[in-house]
């Protein structure tokens, strides 16, 4: 990543999370910058999901703190900072009994994120446009319970992107997507990145990850194993090498 002068958007300081006597994450110190895509890599149980859960305010850290745009993420401030965070987890978090359109509409109302320049009547078109971007426009008025895993994943992504969050946390966003879907998601992510969003994603799809990531953060057993900058020109196996080198 060349433009290191950019602002830090998200920061973890001594971040630790314990479940009972088991540590999922141990004293993690990392800073993430605006407009970067950071890949979270590591074997199963390395603490990737825990880290994302902590960053999303879903779980509270045992020790250490998180700074979002310089503000400490506490229980009090979380309410205000939540709007800045978009989260896509293992679960799709969508309502099966609503259509794709209604799902988005609900979250748009919840986040109150209608673009200011639009009138009430244009809201519908705007939502359809959002669905179009993830390739769901044809299925906009179908119940989400009938969606395939890939379609649900797209809808979830559309939901997370709706309020234009400055931090986007993605836990395995490519599961269930076909090649075209992955391509589409990548385009969306690059667009968000261009807007200045910080994107942190965990994935086992090393190839795709390398294609869009600026940095790779490698975790093992809750500890930081390495933080590598990826160059655009690197060949496809570079990330795999890094990964294997760090984990073994």
């Amino acid at each position, binding site marked *: 990543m060349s433009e290191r002068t950019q602002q830090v958007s998200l920061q973890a300081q001594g971040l630790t999370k314990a479940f*009972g*006597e088991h540590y999922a994450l141990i004293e993690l110190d990392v800073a993430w910058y605006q407009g970067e895509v950071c890949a979270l890599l590591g074997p199963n149980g390395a603490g990737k999901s825990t880290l994302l859960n902590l960053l999303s305010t879903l779980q509270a850290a045992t020790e250490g703190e998180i700074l979002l745009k310089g503000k400490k993420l506490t229980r009090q401030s979380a309410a205000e900072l939540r709007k800045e965070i978009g989260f896509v987890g293992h679960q799709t978090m969508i309502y099966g009994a609503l259509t794709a359109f209604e799902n988005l509409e609900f979250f748009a109302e919840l986040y109150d994120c209608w673009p200011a320049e639009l009138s009430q009547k244009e809201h519908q078109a705007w939502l359809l446009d959002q669905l179009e971007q993830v390739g769901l426009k044809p299925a906009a008025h179908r119940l989400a319970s009938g969606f395939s895993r890939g379609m649900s994943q797209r809808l979830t992504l559309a939901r997370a992107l709706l309020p234009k969050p400055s931090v986007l946390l993605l836990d395995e966003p490519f599961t269930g997507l076909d090649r075209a879907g992955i391509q589409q998601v990548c385009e969306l992510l690059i667009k968000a990145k261009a807007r200045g969003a910080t994107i942190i994603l965990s994935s086992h799809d090393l190839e795709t990850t390398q294609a869009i990531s600026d940095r790779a953060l490698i975790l093992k057993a809750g500890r930081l194993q390495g933080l590598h900058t990826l160059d655009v020109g690197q060949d496809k196996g570079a990330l795999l090498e890094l990964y294997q080198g760090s984990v073994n």
Partner: protein
Amino acid sequence: MNHKDLESQSNASTKIPILWIILGALGMFLAHYLVFIYAPMETTMRAAQRIFYFHLPSAWLCYIGFIMCAGWSLRYLMTQNPKHDALALASAEVGLTFGVIVLTTGPLWARAAWGVWWKWEPRLTTMAILFLIFTCYWVIRSFGGDNAGVRRFGAVLAVLGAPNIFFVHVAVTRWRGDHPNNIGLEPEMRVVLYSCLLIFIILFSLLVRLRYRVHTEERTVSALSRRLSRIGG
């Protein structure tokens, strides 16, 4: 949390309150003397009336234990300080113990006095419901595992349960409010009652402290073993 923190934390709670134990033991002997020898025989209920010297202080302390539990739970909800939670749990447990005493001596007394084990009488009913609520609290805390969600759930239950009892009492009183309340205790009886109450208060605070000590130490142990597992890798 570093080593020194752990040390000081555990030291603060490890001290066994010797003075209280001595006071409590002396108090027991005194209570026996007062209840069985000093107190005059009551005319209508005779010996069975002496149950009441244990029954009443236990009932009061049961209520106090539950109210303390609600208070500490509220503080825990606001501060998230695990010590407050340990205190809430300890007072609920001791309150429950006294509740068991109330609910066992009560029927025994009722049987001797009224010829029935149980009466749908406001105080009895209120006590029973309160006891149920806090038994739920205790069950949740014992079997729910030790995580923040369970603690918070218990705390909310305690906070909602304690004032709720006000309504139960008023409702039951209005429903079955045929209870004569005017009693006159003889001076000697009063002396016995209040000394018993004092002794039970000492016992109560002793038990709460001991229990609190156990809970904090258990937490220290889990924190320590967590630390060890972390150092050990």
